[in-house]
């Protein structure tokens, strides 16, 4: 048995989600190798080689792997997969884009967003927006799996000394090309990795209020900012702030939900947070059913007061 973990990286270094995935790989057993596919990605390969528990890093460094286009990266992963019993990748949008493509090329199922490993062929995953958990047993020769980062601790980033080995690139598929990206710039911690998340909902009412109310609080707490789909749809916050079934899954030590109702789809992305605080003026709001501390109040007075008090 051996596991290939696909690294989420920015060419310079690997992202934390990769470390969570290495932990999941460790629960399966066998050797753990990491694939870094990118362009000028030696930096990422070197950081991957230091991850504790990893015995080999494969590097596919070629222009066609820049920006991780699915049409180019899937054939590479499918080719390498032949030597492994499991291929794991973090359940990030980048990996969700190409991993099912890998699975189909191998004619195997993909097991999406596992939250636990029961044995080498049996895994637990959430369905119905996390309202139901199910055990999935695979009979496929190669298991293709995406891993929910919040369900596995990060493997130590230091302590390993894996061999780094170059692999032959697969050809440019010629089907798609990257044009541009519009990334949200922020000095704050990344949403999925933050220790504290402050999230705002529709009640914030405008782009200006969303930022005026939440930013000073987030700054004081060193928190990331999240949002509900309603807040994103209304233009108060960019799409990558969305927490929930179809946005990001977060599980910080402290989650503060402000002016959001706690719809099923939102809870799907935050109900595993350690401590949940809700500020809502409606005492019947469903968010209070999952909150450790609920404050029934108008956010426009409570939030400035809270910001001042901490």
């Amino acid at each position, binding site marked *: 048995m051996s596991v290939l973990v696909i690294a989420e990286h920015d060419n310079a270094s690997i992202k934390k989600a990769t470390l969570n995935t290495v932990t999941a790989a460790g629960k399966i057993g066998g050797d753990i190798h990491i694939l870094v596919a990118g362009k000028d990605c030696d930096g990422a390969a070197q950081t991957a080689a230091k991850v504790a528990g990893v015995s080999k890093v494969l590097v596919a460094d070629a222009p066609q792997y820049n920006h991780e286009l699915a049409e180019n990266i899937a054939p590479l992963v499918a080719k390498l997969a032949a030597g492994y019993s499991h291929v794991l990748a973090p359940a990030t949008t980048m990996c969700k*884009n190409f991993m099912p493509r890998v699975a*189909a090329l191998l004619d195997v*199922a993909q097991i999406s967003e596992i939250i636990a490993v029961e044995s080498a062929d049996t895994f637990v995953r959430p*369905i119905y927006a996390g309202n139901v958990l199910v055990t999935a047993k695979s009979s496929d020769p190669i298991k293709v799996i995406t891993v929910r980062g919040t369900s596995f601790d990060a493997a130590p980033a230091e302590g390993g000394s894996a061999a780094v080995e170059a692999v032959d690139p697969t050809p440019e598929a010629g089907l*798609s090309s*990257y044009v541009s990206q519009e990334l949200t710039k922020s000095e704050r911690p990344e949403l999925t990795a933050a220790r504290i998340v402050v999230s705002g909902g529709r009640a914030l009412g405008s782009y200006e209020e969303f930022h005026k109310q939440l930013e000073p609080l987030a700054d004081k707490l060193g928190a990331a900012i999240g949002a509900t789909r309603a807040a994103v*749809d209304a233009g108060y916050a960019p799409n990558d702030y969305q927490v929930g*079934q179809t946005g990001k899954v977060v599980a910080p030590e402290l989650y503060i939900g402000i002016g959001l109702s706690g719809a099923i789809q939102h809870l799907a992305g935050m109900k595993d947070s350690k401590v949940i605080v809700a500020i809502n003026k409606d*005492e019947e709001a469903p968010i209070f059913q999952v909150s450790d501390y609920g404050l029934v*109040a108008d956010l426009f007075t409570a939030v400035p007061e809270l910001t001042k008090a901490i």
Partner: protein
Amino acid sequence: MKLLVAVKRVVDYNVNVRSKSDGTGPDIANAKMSMNPFDEVAIEEAVRLKEAGKATEIVAVSMGLKACEETIRTAMAMGADRGILVETDAQLQPLAVAKVLKALVAKEQPQAVLLGKQAIDDDCNQTGQMLAALLGWAQGTFLSKLEVGDGKAIVIREVDGGLETDEIKLPAVLTVDLRLNEPRFVKLPNIMKAKKKPLEVIKPADLGVDVDPRLAYSNFRDPPKRQAGIKVKTVAELVEKLKNEAKVI
């Protein structure tokens, strides 16, 4: 160009699904069923392409029980021209659905297949990507904007860091996110008209596709319940609790 759109019948998004007490499945026998919300967005986008003179025909496809005909009728009421139901009581998993769609693509020769990015029951987020692999086509996933040009499309995709723009060759598989458009309400006269639109019913075997599940699902259960917390009366009390009881700030 001709468009194929995959529409799935799922438990309505407002239903708070629980598992059966014996763990054999979700308890959904009497649940309200609807079209997967993402698939409504896919149909809407197809209809807009047709209204803009870019698409010529829209074929709505669903796989599953006979009742999926309702979902196809809804798609036709929104503007799809005809429907295909691939009827089966097998438990369909994304790879099987992708294989059925591949067979339909061979038959129908569309220039694009539109799907939802994710079905809200299985939360798999796989089928479109798998179909693209099986066809050897380009894929545009998690779309919040689509511009169809000559032999290619410019797509804006919702990714973890923000938005990414790619150019993809047609034919292609496109999976849509919720912000791509706002689906129209279906009007009564259109529901009546949809009843007369052609709806073909076939079986997976007619397409020569093996739809057997690859994953065995068992032990359906509710996630651990959170302990009910307390209500604090003031901001000061909240801060005190967070500092001294929860010790998180």
